[in-house]
C-alpha cells in the first residue's frame, strides 16, 4: 500500500467572500496519526468536512482512500469514520440502539452487527452502558460512544474533529491510547485539535492559520518552520495566534 490515504491539491473552499480554506496541498500517509493544528477559524473543520464529503470544494481536488471526493463521495463514506466536534448521535436512543443503527446504516447484516457491537463495546469498555440513553452519558462516555459508532464498519480512515473538547484529562489520555492502538492496527487517523499535548502525540502535523497551510512535518519540524523564535509547538501556536490578531 504505497498510495497515500489522503492527497489534496490546491483544495479551496469559499463561503461567499470568506475564504475558509485556501490552496491546501497536503499528503497524508496510510497508517499515520496526522494532526491538523491551528487557532479557531483557521480552516481545520472545513478541511475535514471537505475530505468527508460534507462540503463540496470550491476549487482544487482531494483524493481520499484512493477516491476523488467530487467523483464518488458515497464510496468514500463506506471507507471512512467521522466524529464531529459536537456530539452527533441520538440522545433519545440508548447506547446499544445507536450502535445498532449505525451498524445497519453502514450495511452490516444483523449477525455481523451483533458481533461487531460486541467487539467495539469490549474495545471501548461500553458494555455496562448499553441500555443507557445516550443523552444521559457524561462527556467522556459520549465521546467513546461516538468513536464506537464511527468504528462500527471498520473504516480504513478515521476523521476526528476536536474529539476531546469538553472531556476530562483522564478520559483524554485514555482516548489517545485508543487512537494509538487503532493506528498500530493500520487505521489512518486524522485529528484536529488545539491542545498542544495532543498535537505532540501526532506522527506528523499540519499547522493552519487563516485558511492557509503554514507548516507541515513532525511536531519539532513544524515548530521550527513557523519561526518567530518558536522552539516548541506551543511557542509556534502563540506566535501564529498573535499574527492573526494583528
Amino acid at each position, binding site marked *: 500500500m504505497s498510495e497515500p490515504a489522503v492527497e489534496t491539491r490546491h483544495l479551496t473552499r469559499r*463561503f461567499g467572500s470568506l475564504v475558509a480554506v485556501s490552496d491546501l496541498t497536503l499528503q497524508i500517509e496510510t497508517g499515520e496519526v496526522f494532526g491538523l493544528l491551528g487557532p479557531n477559524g483557521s480552516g481545520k473543520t472545513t478541511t475535514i*468536512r471537505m475530505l*468527508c*464529503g*460534507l*462540503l*463540496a470544494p470550491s476549487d482544487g481536488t482531494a483524493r481520499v482512500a484512493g477516491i476523488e471526493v467530487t467523483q464518488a463521495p*458515497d*464510496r468514500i*463514506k*463506506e471507507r*471512512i469514520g*467521522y466524529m*464531529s466536534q*459536537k*456530539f*452527533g*448521535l*441520538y*440522545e*433519545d*436512543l440508548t447506547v446499544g*440502539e445507536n450502535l*445498532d*443503527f*449505525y451498524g*445497519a*446504516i*453502514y*450495511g452490516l447484516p444483523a449477525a455481523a452487527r451483533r458481533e461487531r457491537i460486541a467487539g467495539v463495546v469490549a474495545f471501548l469498555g461500553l458494555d455496562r452502558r448499553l441500555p443507557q440513553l445516550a443523552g444521559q452519558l457524561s462527556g467522556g462516555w459520549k465521546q467513546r460512544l*461516538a468513536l464506537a*459508532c464511527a468504528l462500527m464498519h471498520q473504516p480504513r480512515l478515521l476523521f476526528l474533529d476536536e474529539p476531546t473538547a469538553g472531556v476530562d484529562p483522564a478520559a483524554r489520555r485514555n482516548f489517545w491510547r485508543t487512537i494509538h492502538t487503532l493506528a498500530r492496527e493500520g487505521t489512518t487517523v486524522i485529528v484536529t485539535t488545539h491542545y498542544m499535548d495532543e498535537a505532540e502525540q501526532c506522527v506528523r502535523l499540519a499547522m493552519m492559520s487563516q485558511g492557509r497551510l503554514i507548516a507541515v512535518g513532525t511536531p519539532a519540524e513544524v515548530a521550527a518552520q513557523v519561526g518567530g523564535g518558536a522552539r516548541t509547538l506551543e511557542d509556534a501556536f502563540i506566535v501564529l495566534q498573535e499574527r492573526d490578531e494583528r
Partner: protein
Amino acid sequence: MMLPRFWPMFRKEFIQMRRDRLTLSIMVGIPVVQLLMFGYAIQTDVRHIPTVVLDQSRTPESRDLVAAFQNTGNFRIVAHVDGRSALDAALARGSAQAGIVVPYDYARDLARRRTAAVQVIVDASDPLSSQAAIQAAAGVAQVRNLVILGAAAGRPQPPIEARVRPRYNPGLRSPNYIVPGLVGVILTLTMVLVTAMAIVRERERGTLEQLIVTPITRTELMLGKIAPYVGVGLVQMSAVLLLGRFVFDVPLTGNVLLLYGVALIFVVASLSLGLFISTLVRTQQQAMQVSFFFVLPNILLSGFMFPRQAMPLVFQWLGALLPLTHFLKVLRGILLKGVGVPALWPEILVLVTFAVGLIGLAVRRFHKTLD
C-alpha cells in the same frame, strides 16, 4: 429499487417517536380535541337566540304571535319587559340578542284588516347568528299571512308549494360538513408541520452531520424519515372518521378504500411540502412559523369552513392552488354523496399532479451536504 438503509432509518424514527411523549400526545390529541371542538362548539345553524318581548298589545292575538316566534325554535324568550328602554338595555348588555315589539294597536289593526306591524330588533354585530333570526322572523309573518289571506280568499290550500329536498345532508347538520373537512385539515397540519420539524430537528441537534457522512442515500434518508408519519396520518384519519361516525353520526356513505387511496396521495403531497419547507429553514422555530403560515390559508381558503363560491375570484384561484381544496371535494364526495372515481377523477388527477410536483421540488432541494 433496493433501499437497504431504509429500514434501519424507519426503525430508528419509530423508536424516537415512541419516546417523544409530547409530540406523540400532540399527534394523537390534535385530532380528538379538534374534532370535539369543531363538532360540538362550531354550529353554523344558530338556534335559540335569547329574546326579550315588549308586548304592548296584551291580547290573545299578541300572545299567539309571540308563541309562534318561540315555536320556530330560533327564539328563546328570556324576559318580558315593560318599556322600550328596558328592551334596548337588554340588547346593549347582550343578555338578549333579539327583541320583539308588539305595538298597542296590533290586535285592533288585525281586526280592521289593516297591516299590523310587529317590530323585530336583532343584534347584527354577529351577522351569522342574526341571519337565522331575521329569516325566522320573516317566516313567522309569512306563514300567518298565508293563513289569513287564504281564509279571506276562500282558498285554504296555498296555490304553490316548493318542495325542497336537501340531498346528501338532509338534516342540514354542520358536523356532516365539518368532520370530513377536519380529516383534511388535520392531515395537512400534521404532515406538513411534523415532517418539517423532524428533519430540521436533526440538523439543529447536529445528528444530520453524523448521518450524512454515512453511505445512506438521499432517497433512503428522506423515505425512512417520513414513512413513519404516513402511518401516523392514516391513524389520525381513522380516528377522526370513527369518532365522527359514532359520536356525531356522520355517515360513511361511499367507498372507504378509495378514500384511503386518495388520502395516501394527499399525504404524500403534504409530506413532500413539509420536506421542502425543511430545506428552506434552519431552526425548528422557523419551520413551525413557515408551516403555520401555510396552514392558515388552508383553513380559510380551502372551503373547510367558508364556502369558496362566496369568495372573490382571486381567492378562489388561490384556494385552487392548495391540495386541501381538492382533497376536501373528494372527502365530501365520498363520505356524504357516496360517489366514486367517475365523479371525482378531475380532483384526484389534480392531487396526483400536486404530489408528483412537490416530490420533485423536495428531492431537488434536499441535498446530502451541510450547506
